[in-house]
């Protein structure tokens, strides 16, 4: 195998590592691999077995570490859409709070629906708080966003149960936004690696 092909094969193996780790150390690792190839002179099966074993031994651990880092609630989020997502959360939260208050004041609710409306007000406030945290780039933004989104989805199911006539637009808005917020909270994060 030529040196160039070998480096290409090693680059494929490097894909087993988490992207943040690859970004930080991929180039250095490739340089090390190149040096190892040069010193091995005729790298055979033993050489490749050692390289593959090294990747197989270390990549899963680093992947788990990266996942744990992703689950760290104090980790800050990043990404261009953070302000937009925060503004949307505040807007939808306020809209829902006003809507719930109107419904509560209108007196058209009794028993379970009244409780749902009260929960809706609390969750709206939670969504507004999460939105403000996102706008302020607070360290708790990720946790708050996840809690707000999950609670919101639970509320939608509840509302659909007692208000089956809820409009498709409202349902879509109530489901799509928290889903988007959840996905955003899971995927957008600052790399912890130095």
């Amino acid at each position, binding site marked *: 195998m030529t040196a160039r092909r070998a480096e290409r094969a090693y680059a494929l193996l490097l894909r087993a590592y988490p992207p943040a*780790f690859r970004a930080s150390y991929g180039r*250095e690792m490739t*340089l*090390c*691999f190149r040096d190892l190839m040069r010193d091995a002179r005729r790298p055979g099966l033993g050489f490749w077995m050692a390289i593959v074993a090294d*990747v197989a031994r270390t990549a899963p*651990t680093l992947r788990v570490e990266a996942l744990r880092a992703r689950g760290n609630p104090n980790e800050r989020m990043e990404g261009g859409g953070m302000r937009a997502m925060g503004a949307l959360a505040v807007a939808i939260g306020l809209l829902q709070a006003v809507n719930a208050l109107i419904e509560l004041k209108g007196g058209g609710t009794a028993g379970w629906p009244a409780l749902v409306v009260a929960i809706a007000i609390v969750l709206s406030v939670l969504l507004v708080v999460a939105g403000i945290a996102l706008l302020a780039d607070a360290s708790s933004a990720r946790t708050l966003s996840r809690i707000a989104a999950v609670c919101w989805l639970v509320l939608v199911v509840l509302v659909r149960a007692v208000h089956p006539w809820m409009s498709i637009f409202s349902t879509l808005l109530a489901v799509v936004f928290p889903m988007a917020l959840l996905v955003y909270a899971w995927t957008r994060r600052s790399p912890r690696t130095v």
Partner: protein
Amino acid sequence: MPVRDPEAQLPLTPATFHILLALVGEERHGYAIMQEVAERTDGTMKLGPGTLYGSLKRMLEQGLVEESDERADPALDDERRRYYRITRVGLSVARAEARRLEAMVRSARQKKLIGRATA
């Protein structure tokens, strides 16, 4: 998070301890660390790139080592390489680990598992 109590970091993994030893008194880049470890252990311990950089990543996070700068190694090629050096905390942790290992070897000698070290 940087280490406060060196003893709390023990025991170190063999890779971490060997990397710290390789960096005592000298800045080295990744491949130079690998070579130093292989030479020091008579080839019994060969660090692969994944083991080396996985360990270095954690050691950087714990403040045991730090990056110095990027420069070429004239002995190898013109590629610029990242150099690493041991920190004061790293040195304390390495010393604490060496003392721990020394105590273990002493115990093994008392049990006559190994003989006296020859000068």
